[in-house]
């Protein structure tokens, strides 16, 4: 049989439980704008019942737990998308600087000096004995080598910048993985102690998302509440409360390779700004540097060879206009003009008879025409120089444009994921306000019950007074 004291306890349990629920709603409202916060719900349940004979009495309500609402799958997908975006943004940022070197619409590329160089031979052919047209050839050659040297040097600078970004990313990654390892421990402890691990999980997800900006990670649930993080190739970054720092080592090119536990994983990294910068540093820029080297080497070789086929103003066989190059690698940086005397340009196709060091064929332009015609020969990797260069402009434009398209699509996908996540975890003020009113009413009702029971107890006590007096 129930007692008044039992009823009082029941009412009290309700007041306590409602108080907890009100706390939860208040905390949700307080954190409405907190980044990474997942809304919490107070889980109320019936208190254990008491059995007396055939009768079952309820003993009130209890706040069983407070849980954070989150969708772990959405977290993982958000992190993957973030890693993708991090890589694309790093690539686009550096790629835009590369394409600025080949921006023909604003005239900052190589086309004008390339065309001017060949035009100087046409000028020469129209008046081969004129010292001015001869000097113009050497000036145009110097302008061309200057432009190619400069572009090559600018590419190297961009490559060095990308290498610096790689090093910065690595130190950020190491700082984040060590924080994640700590928070992992907090989640494990909260889980073991029967507390709500939600707030620690919120913090962990925030950190993993930041980490994803720098590197793509795969996440696996260890079962005890902790997450195991590893790189795309399976190198461990975080296991339980332990983090594994990435390290760097200077490679043969003078750039930093990435090592995990003594293993070089540079080429296997995917996702995040680290992957984007490695892509720029180890693939994109070397590809352009190599194209530029090919252009410089083939131009040097073909022009020198054609000049050697003719005769200069003195009736001597032509020599080298450009400094002869021994290998393709580094050709763009090393390209130079070796000829200083414009008389040595071999415009003529014949030696002629030489009187006082002057050829009788100084007006011959056969070889000048041949030098001019080089621009239409497939001398650079099976293409004409302009065609080859145009291909380079297309490649950088296309690479950046493709990355931009992917970045836009990814940005929308990310926004979509954030909306889905907000649907699960976001705090809705109206919902919390309704809950608040609901819990408040229940609390007031319980308080009213206490008053009623109090009055009943008084009645009982007064009754005993009457009996004794």
């Amino acid at each position, binding site marked *: 049989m129930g007692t008044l004291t039992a009823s009082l306890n029941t009412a009290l349990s309700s007041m306590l439980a409602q108080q907890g629920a009100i706390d939860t709603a208040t905390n949700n409202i307080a954190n409405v704008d907190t980044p990474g916060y997942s809304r919490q719900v107070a889980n109320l349940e019936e208190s254990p019942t008491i059995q007396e004979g055939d009768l079952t009495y309820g003993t009130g309500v209890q706040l069983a737990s407070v849980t954070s609402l989150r969708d772990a799958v959405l977290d993982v997908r958000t992190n993957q998308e973030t890693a993708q975006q991090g890589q694309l943004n790093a690539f686009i940022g550096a790629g835009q600087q590369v*394409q*600025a070197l*080949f*921006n*023909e*619409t*604003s005239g900052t*590329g190589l*086309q004008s000096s390339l*065309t*001017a160089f060949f*035009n100087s031979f*046409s*000028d020469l*052919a*129209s*008046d*081969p*004995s*004129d010292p001015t047209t001869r000097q113009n050839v050497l000036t145009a050659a110097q302008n061309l080598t200057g432009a190619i040297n400069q572009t090559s040097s600018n590419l190297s600078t961009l490559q060095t910048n990308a290498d610096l970004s790689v090093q910065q990313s690595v130190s950020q990654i190491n700082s984040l993985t060590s924080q994640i390892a700590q928070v992992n421990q907090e989640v494990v402890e909260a889980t073991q102690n029967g507390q709500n691990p939600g707030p620690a999980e919120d913090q962990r997800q925030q950190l993993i998302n930041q980490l994803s900006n720098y590197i793509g990670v795969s996440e696996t649930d260890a079962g005890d509440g902790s997450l195991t993080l590893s790189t795309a190739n399976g190198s461990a970054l975080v296991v339980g409360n332990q983090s594994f720092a990435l390290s760097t080592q200077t490679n043969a090119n003078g750039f930093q390779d990435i090592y995990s536990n003594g293993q070089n994983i540079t080429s296997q990294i995917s996702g995040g700004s680290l992957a984007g910068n490695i892509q720029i540093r180890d693939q994109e820029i070397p590809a352009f540097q190599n194209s530029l080297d090919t252009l410089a080497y083939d131009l040097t070789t073909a022009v020198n060879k054609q000049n050697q086929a003719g005769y200069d103003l003195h009736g001597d066989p032509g020599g080298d206009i450009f400094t002869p190059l021994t290998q393709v690698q580094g050709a763009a940086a090393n390209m130079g003009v070796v000829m200083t005397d414009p008389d040595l340009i071999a415009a003529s196709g*014949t030696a*002629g008879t030489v*009187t006082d060091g*002057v050829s*009788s*064929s*100084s*007006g*011959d*332009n*056969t070889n000048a*025409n041949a030098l*001019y015609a080089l621009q239409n020969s497939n001398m650079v990797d099976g293409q004409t120089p*302009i065609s080859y*260069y*145009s*291909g380079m*402009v*297309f490649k*950088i*434009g*296309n690479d*950046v*444009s493709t990355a*931009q398209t992917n970045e836009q699509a990814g940005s929308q996908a990310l*926004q979509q994921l*954030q*909306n889905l*996540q*907000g*649907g*699960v975890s*976001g*705090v*809705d*003020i*109206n919902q919390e*306000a*309704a809950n608040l*009113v609901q819990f408040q009413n229940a609390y007031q009702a319980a308080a009213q019950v206490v008053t009623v029971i109090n009055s009943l107890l008084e009645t009982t006590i007064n009754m005993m007074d009457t009996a004794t007096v």
Partner: protein
Amino acid sequence: MSIRLNPNLLPDLLAGIEQSQQNETTASQELASGRSVNEPSDDPAAAAAIVFNHNQASQDAQFLQNISNLQGRFQVADSTLSNVVTSVTQAITIGTEGANGTLSPSERQALAAQVQGILTQVMGLANTTYQGAYLFGGTSVTTQPFAVDATTGAITYNGNDQTTTVQLTDGNSITANVPGDQLFQNPGGSILGALQDLYTALNTSSDNMGNAVTELGSALSQLDTQRVTYGNALNQINLSESFLNQDQLNVAQQENDLEGADVTQAATAFSQAQLANQAAISATSQVLNQKNLLDYLA
């Protein structure tokens, strides 16, 4: 129960504002620069085509410069040869006069002196230079092509028989000179030889006077034949010049097609983006000021 939506509308709204602002910037850049392709990634194919386009434009400019250079040279050559014709015609008149049997030896010698003057004049014309280079020495342009041998008195040609070819347009070339021996010492009729013969005939009162005049006549018609080369060349040059001027227009039009902004389209895009931007801002301000349940509970 319906699916719970994200209660936080701001990220979507802010993304909308950002997007419309970006569209506004793109359209205004296009309007300001007059170009739809400002960097290769805007349109990679157009950016690659612009390389060829600019190359073509510079080549055309170079060809036009060659043409203006050649025009000057050909005009000088043509007017030089025209002067030669005048002088030779004068010599023929003198020769015809000298053939008159009534003239005294001294009168003939006076005529001979006139012919000598004409010969010197023609020699000077044959050694004409243009911008420091001899016009009629073949490809030997630094040595005076015609000289009188001090001992024999014979006129020697020190040039060569080479011609030069200059490109006027892609795949279209022109011969830029006629070697001097073809003009002045042609085997079919030598101007210089005939003038010398006429001088000798007048000076010695020889019977060869008539022959010398005939010789001079055929040398003159030979010169006219060779001179046509320069006339034709000038015509060909003028044709190429018109072609190149037209091609420059085409190239400029093509450049505009490749990278030029469609102003109407850009202006429309700009006002659309502006409208979208205002709508997004207004929606955001309404959401920010929206009352919630708590406002009604007080």
